[in-house]
C-alpha cells in the first residue's frame, strides 16, 4: 500500500501528469485515425524520450499505447473501421448502434466500459502480479493449445446467423491464416510468388478490408445522404436506465475475462475481446439481438480489451516478455534508459514501477474526461454526406495501411480484401468468424506442433499436464452442453409437433 502511495506521488508530479495527458491525447488521436496504429507512434516517439526521465518516458509511451487502444473503438463504432482485432469485435454491435442513431450511447458505453475495465485490470495487477507471473510462465505449448482450441470451438458454437455459414467462415479464416512462412520449417505457403506474402496477410489489412473497405463499396448502391440525419443532443448520448442495466454486468464480466487473458503473450487483448463477446452472446436471453446493436456486445469486449491491455503489462514489466510489437518497443525504451525489466524491477525501482502503474489509472481517468466531451464531435462526423465521407475514409484506410509496414503492396491487398469482403456480404457471410479463424488458426497450429516436438509426437502430452487437461475438460463439457441443449430443443420440437 505504501508502494502505491509512493506511486501516486510520482505519477502526480506536474511533469509526469503533463506527459501522461500528452500521451493519452496523442494516443486517442492516433487510435481514432484508422490504421495508423500505436506501433508507429510509439516507435517515432522513442528517440524523443531519451531526453526525459525514465519514469516520465515510460508514462508518455504507455499513455500513447493505451490511449490508442481506447481511441480505436471510436472509428470502429462510427465508421466500421477497426484497426485491431479487438476493435473489430466492437464493430459487430457498435456500428449497427451508430446506424440506429445510437452512436452517442455506444461511445459513452465504450468510454465507461473501458475505464472500468482498465481500472479493474490495474487493481488486479497490483494485487496479483506474482500470481500472474507464475501463470504466464507455467503456460507452455500444451496449455496454449488447449486454451486456443477452447476459443475456436466457442467461436464455432456461437456465431450469428447460420451455424454452417459461421463454420465455413472460420475454416476460410484458418486457410487465410496459413498464408505465409511456416514457423517450424521456414517453408513458405501460398505466397503466389510475392515476397510480401511471405509473412502472411497483415492483420490490419484483413480487418480494414473486410470491415471498412467492404462498407465503403456497399455504400455505393445505397441511396445518398448521411448515416444519421437526426440532430444529436447530449441527452441522446447517455444510455437509458434499461440499457445501463444490460451494460454494466457485461462490463464487469468483460473486465474479468480481459484481466485473465491479458498476460498471455501474443494473444491477450484480441482473445479477451472475442471470448467476452462470445460469453455475452451465450448467456444472453435473446442471442439474436447480437450483431444488430446489442449494447452488451459493445460494453463487454471494450472492458475486456482495456483490462487485458493493462494486465498485459505484467509479463512486459515483470518478466521482460513483450505481448505485442508495441510493448516490445516499450521494453526497448526501458532498456535504453538503463532499466532492466524483470521481477527485480518491482523491488529495485519501486518509484518507477508503481509510478507507472499509478499513471495508468490516472491515464484511464484522463481518457474518460477527455473522451466524453469529444463524443458529440465524433458523432457529428456521421452527418457528413456519404459522397464526401467515404472517399475520405478510403484515403485514410490507404494511408493507415501503408503506415503499418511502409509497403504499397498492403494498400493493394486491402482493396482486394475489401472486394472479397463485399462478395461475402452479398452472400450473407459474416466477417467476424473469418477474423477469429485467421488469428487463432496459426497460433493453434504453432502450439500443437511445438507441443508435439517437445512430447516427441505423443498426443497424450496434451492431457497429462493439469492445466491443459483442465481446459480440455472444460471444452468437452462445452461441446456436451451444446449438443445436449440442441437435442433437447429438437425433441421438444418433435413432441410439440406430435401434440399439435
Amino acid at each position: 500500500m505504501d508502494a502505491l502511495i509512493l506511486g501516486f506521488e510520482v505519477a502526480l508530479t506536474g511533469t509526469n501528469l503533463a506527459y501522461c495527458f500528452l500521451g493519452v491525447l496523442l494516443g486517442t488521436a492516433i487510435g481514432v485515425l484508422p490504421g495508423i496504429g500505436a506501433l508507429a507512434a510509439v516507435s517515432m516517439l522513442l528517440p524523443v524520450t531519451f531526453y526525459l526521465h525514465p519514469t516520465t518516458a515510460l508514462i508518455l509511451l504507455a499513455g500513447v499505447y493505451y490511449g490508442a487502444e481506447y481511441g480505436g473503438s471510436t472509428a470502429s463504432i462510427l465508421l466500421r473501421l477497426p484497426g485491431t482485432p479487438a476493435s473489430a469485435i466492437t464493430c459487430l454491435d457498435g456500428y449497427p448502434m451508430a446506424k440506429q442513431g445510437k452512436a452517442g450511447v455506444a461511445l459513452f458505453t465504450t468510454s465507461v466500459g473501458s475505464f472500468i475495465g482498465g481500472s479493474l485490470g490495474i487493481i488486479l495487477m497490483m494485487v496479483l502480479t506474482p500470481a500472474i507471473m507464475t501463470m504466464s510462465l507455467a503456460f507452455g505449448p500444451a496449455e496454449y493449445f488447449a486454451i486456443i482450441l477452447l476459443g475456436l470451438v466457442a467461436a464455432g458454437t456461437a456465431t450469428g446467423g447460420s451455424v454452417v455459414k459461421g463454420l465455413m467462415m472460420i475454416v476460410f479464416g484458418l486457410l487465410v491464416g496459413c498464408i505465409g512462412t511456416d514457423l517450424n520449417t521456414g517453408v513458405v505457403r501460398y505466397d503466389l510468388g510475392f515476397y510480401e506474402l511471405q509473412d502472411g496477410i497483415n492483420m490490419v489489412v484483413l480487418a480494414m478490408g473486410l470491415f471498412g473497405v467492404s462498407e465503403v463499396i456497399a455504400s455505393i448502391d445505397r441511396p445518398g445522404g448521411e448515416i444519421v440525419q437526426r440532430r444529436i443532443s447530449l441527452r441522446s448520448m447517455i444510455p437509458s436506465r434499461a440499457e445501463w442495466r444490460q451494460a454494466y454486468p457485461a462490463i464487469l464480466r468483460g473486465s474479468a475475462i480481459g484481466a485473465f487473458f491479458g498476460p498471455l503473450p501474443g494473444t491477450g487483448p484480441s482473445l479477451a475481446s472475442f471470448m467476452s463477446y462470445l460469453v455475452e452472446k451465450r448467456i444472453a436471453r435473446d442471442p439474436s439481438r447480437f450483431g444488430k446493436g446489442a449494447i452488451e456486445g459493445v460494453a463487454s469486449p471494450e472492458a475486456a480489451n482495456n483490462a487485458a491491455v493493462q494486465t498485459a503489462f505484467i509479463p512486459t514489466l515483470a518478466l521482460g516478455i513483450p505481448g505485442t510489437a508495441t510493448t516490445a518497443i516499450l521494453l526497448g525504451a526501458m532498456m535504453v534508459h538503463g532499466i532492466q525489466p524483470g521481477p527485480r524491477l518491482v523491488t529495485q525501482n519501486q518509484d518507477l514501477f508503481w509510478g507507472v502503474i499509478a499513471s495508468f489509472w490516472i491515464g484511464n481517468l484522463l481518457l474518460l474526461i477527455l473522451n466524453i466531451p469529444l463524443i458529440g464531435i465524433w458523432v457529428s462526423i456521421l452527418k457528413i454526406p456519404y459522397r464526401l465521407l467515404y472517399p475520405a475514409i478510403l484515403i485514410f484506410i490507404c494511408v493507415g495501411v501503408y503506415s503499418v509496414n511502409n509497403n504499397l503492396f498492403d494498400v493493394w491487398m486491402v482493396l482486394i480484401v475489401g472486394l472479397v469482403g463485399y462478395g461475402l456480404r452479398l452472400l450473407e457471410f459474416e466477417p467476424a468468424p473469418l477474423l477469429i479463424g485467421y488469428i487463432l488458426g496459426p497460433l493453434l497450429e504453432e502450439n500443437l506442433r511445438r507441443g508435439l516436438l517437445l512430447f516427441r509426437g505423443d498426443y497424450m502430452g496434451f492431457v497429462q499436464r493439469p492445466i491443459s487437461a483442465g481446459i480440455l475438460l472444460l471444452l468437452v463439457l462445452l461441446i456436451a452442453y451444446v449438443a445436449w441443449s440442441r437435442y433437447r430443443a429438437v425433441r421438444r420440437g418433435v413432441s410439440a409437433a406430435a401434440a399439435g
Partner: protein
Amino acid sequence: MKFGLKSSLGLIAALVLSGSALAQGAGDFPNKPVTLVVAFSPGGSTDNLARVIVDDFGQVLGQPVVVENRPGAGGYVAWRSVQSAPPDGYTVLLAENAVALGKALRPDEPLDPRKAFEAVAKIGTAPMALIINSKLEPKTFQEFVEFAKAKEGGVNFSSSGVGSVSHMTFDALADLIGVQPQHIPYRGGGEANAAVVGGHVDAMMQSVGSARKLSEEGGVRVLAVTSEERNPTMPDVPTLKELGVEPDVELRFWWGIFVPAGTPAPIKEKLAAAMKETLERPAVRDRLANIEVAPEFGPAEEMAASLDSEITNWSALVEKRGIKAD
C-alpha cells in the same frame, strides 16, 4: 520537478542543433533527410539500435535521419528496396547478421548482398551466451555436453525463429560439440526466453545482456559466453575459446551500415565519418551500453570482408547440417 525543465531544454537544444549543423565535404551531401532502413519490425534489437543512434547520427550529418521499418520475408523486402534505391547516399541500410544468414539459407535467391550493397562501416556487436533452465542438472559447459549427448531424443533449444541468429548459432555450437539438438522455434526472443525460464525447453543461445538478466532472476544458468574475453559482469562464466570450442562463424550479433551499389566514394566516406563520430559521443555510448551493444567502429573494407566470410562459412554450415528455410 527539476528534471522536467532540464530535459525539455535538452529536447529543444537537440531539435535546434539537428537543423543548424553545417554540411562539410562530399559536395552538398546531405541536403535532405537520410532514410535508415531497418529490415525488421519496431521493437526488435536492430530497431532499438537504430532509434538509439538516429538522432545523434542526424546531428553529425547535419540532416535528420529517419528510421524506416520495412519488415517482411526474413529481411528480403527491405533488402530488395535498398537494392533498387538510387545510389545517392540518402538510403542507408542498417544491416545485421540476417543479411549473411539470409543469403546462406536461400542460395537460389538472386539478391546477393555482396553485389547489391556496398559496405560503409561496421557499427557494433553483442556477444551471446549459452543458457539452460536452472532446474536442469548440468552446472558447467562440460556437463551440459554430456547431458546433451545422453538425453534421449536429443537436447532441445528455443530460438526466435527458423534461420534466426539464436537458431543458427545454437546449431553451429551443436555441430562443434557433436550433438543433434531438437529445434523449437518461437515467435521472437521474448517468447523463446520464457520457454527456457518456464522449463518448457532446455537451452538457448541468447544475448549476454538478456542471459545475465534471466540468470540474476534465477530462471536460467549461464554456461558459456561467445566473446573473446570473459564478460566483466559475469566473471565466473568461461568463454567458448577457453573451453576449446572455436567456430569459423561469428557466434554473436553484429551490425553495420550499407548503401546501394554504385554510391559515390565521397558520400560513403562522409557517412562513415559521421557514424564514427556518432559512436564516439558519450550519450550514445551510454545508451548503447544499456541495450548491450558494444560500439565497434570498423571501416568499409573490414565490414565487406567480414560479410564475405560470414556468407561463405554459414553457407558451408547450412549445407553440412541440412538446415532449410525456403
